[in-house]
């Protein structure tokens, strides 16, 4: 049984089939990627995994459970966290608060604890604050803990989103175009960060346009075009795949 698997997943919006019978398996501890031209259905696939969309047909398996059609907060609780293509931070909360909010699902304070600030709540709050600082340090943002997320430079916002996602202690981290808008230097840093995340024991599944980055870090790659998977394999296999070259460069007439 695979750690994570898309099983013949299809998503249709009316007549438009955004994702068509896509299957893809990822093993624990891997860095896996999904690539494809704009509009190929990559982000839709992510949205199906995290429960933003319900698949028209097919299934999604994670850690032995069927998660297709489950709500986002439930999926997060099971251990899947994500970042967004168009950064969706809590813009007017501090960086630290963003990460602490990301920890929500692993906290136990009930309404009563929140209302009365019971000793249990205080202890938890302190622990969560420390853990959040730890994560900010991990992504290199400890100096910006008190800044509003909105005021951070673009590259930092992407890192903060990763820290927020990690706060929920995911077993699987979905990164939706993490390098978009980054300069080459920032991209290098990102590669190191993604590797470090994997080394912490989190499986990484990313969507990316930057082929250099994908080929560099991925162990397994699936290629989507017009909602269908046209190839899957190691970076070497993908690089020499005729269908992939065709999808990206067009056929030479």
């Amino acid at each position, binding site marked *: 049984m695979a750690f994570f698997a898309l099983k013949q997943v299809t998503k249709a919006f009316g007549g438009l089939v955004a994702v068509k019978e896509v299957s893809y398996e990822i093993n624990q501890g891997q860095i896996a990627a999904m690539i494809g031209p704009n509009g190929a259905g990559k982000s839709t696939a992510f949205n199906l995994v*995290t429960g*933003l969309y319900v698949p028209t047909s097919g299934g999604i398996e994670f850690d032995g459970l069927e998660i297709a059609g489950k*709500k*986002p*907060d439930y999926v*997060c*609780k099971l251990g899947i*966290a*994500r970042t*967004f293509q168009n950064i*969706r*931070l*809590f*813009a*007017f*909360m501090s960086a*630290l*608060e963003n990460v*602490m*909010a*990301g920890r*929500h*699902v*692993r*906290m136990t*304070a009930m*309404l009563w*604890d*929140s*209302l*009365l*600030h019971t000793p249990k*709540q205080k202890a*938890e*709050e302190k622990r969560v*604050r420390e853990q959040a*600082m730890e994560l900010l340090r991990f992504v290199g943002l400890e100096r910006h*803990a*008190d800044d*509003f997320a*909105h*005021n951070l430079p*673009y590259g930092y916002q992407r890192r903060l989103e990763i820290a*927020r*996602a990690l*706060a*929920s202690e995911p077993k699987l981290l979905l990164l939706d175009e993490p*390098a*978009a*808008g980054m300069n*080459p230097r920032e*991209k290098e840093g990102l590669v190191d960060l993604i590797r470090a995340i994997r080394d912490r024991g989190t499986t990484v599944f990313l969507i990316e*346009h*930057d*082929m*250099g*980055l994908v080929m560099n870090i991925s162990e397994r790659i699936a290629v989507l075009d017009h909602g269908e998977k046209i190839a899957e394999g190691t970076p070497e296999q993908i690089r020499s795949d005729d269908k992939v070259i065709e999808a*990206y460069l067009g056929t030479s007439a």
Partner: protein
Amino acid sequence: MNKKKKKLRPADIVMIALAVFMPFLPLVDHNGGHITVLVNAGVYMMLAIGLNIVVGFAGLLDLGYAAFFAIGSYTYAMVASPQFGLHFSFWPMIFVSAAVAALFGIILGAPTLRLRGDYLAIVTLGFGEIVPQTFLNLQKITGGPNGISAIDQPKIFGYHFGLNPVPYYYLVLVLVALSLVFANNLRTSRLGRAWMAIREDEIAAAHMGVNTTTAKLAAFSLGASFSGLSGVVNASLLTLVSPDQFKFNVSITVLSMLVLGGMGSLPGVVLGSALLSLLNFFILPQAGNLVAMVGLHVDFTQYRFMLYGIILVCIMLFKPEGLWGAEQRKAELKEHDDKAVIAAENAEYEDMPRESM
């Protein structure tokens, strides 16, 4: 980080000063009229603190908040008056009433969960109208248009509150202080962060594991519970409740207090509700008396809503985050100004050439 936590903010200093000063006020000021003004201000302050949880913290625009005030007031009125011959004790009813209002917060909140922004505002506006209408028409239970009168006043250790506003003053002072502590605790807790996350980006909040359904219902019900407290005090203070006390203008008055003081900011809420209450219950009536001395007869209280309008327009023009706004709101509004610039910047990012494949 820790040293920052220890530092006293101006808000803390003002709150401490007020906490020290306010209990002695009735000893200095023997004018019962002044004390009554403050009691009324306190009633509204509790409402504002409650509404701030829904609107300020969770970002859910509620235009029918007076409904919960009505429910809180009627809950006490029905069980502590000749209406049904019941005379329950005041003190436990504070909590019962808050719980009943909280329950109705959930009942009225549940159908609105999928709604946002304007749509939510319209539906809550509807609820705000339906509830007093219901009380108006349930003649047998609520006394219809006449409402319920001769409501019991609290007594403690054999002492009857009666017409003396001073014991009410202390009661309201304690309840307002407790409300502020609770609201502040909520703000800096797991639940408060979840509310703010929903306010900032509901989809991202859900993806971070926040159950948006329960978090929103918690906001509606906790917000409503404060108006339950307020309602009990209001009913026993006036010894009369009737449907026309809970009209739309109450919801708007409370919302105006938040806008004036600063949404989402507790010091702002205190300041806003204090200022507007003072205007309502003191300045406007006094202004009438003042001009009467020179032989003019103007009822300034008639112009209340015109004044609110002017005040709100001025606030929006000169200090849109409110007199004592939250930092977060200030930044947000500034961003609004810079929106054109930011849109241009974002467009630039989108146009940036992708790395070669």
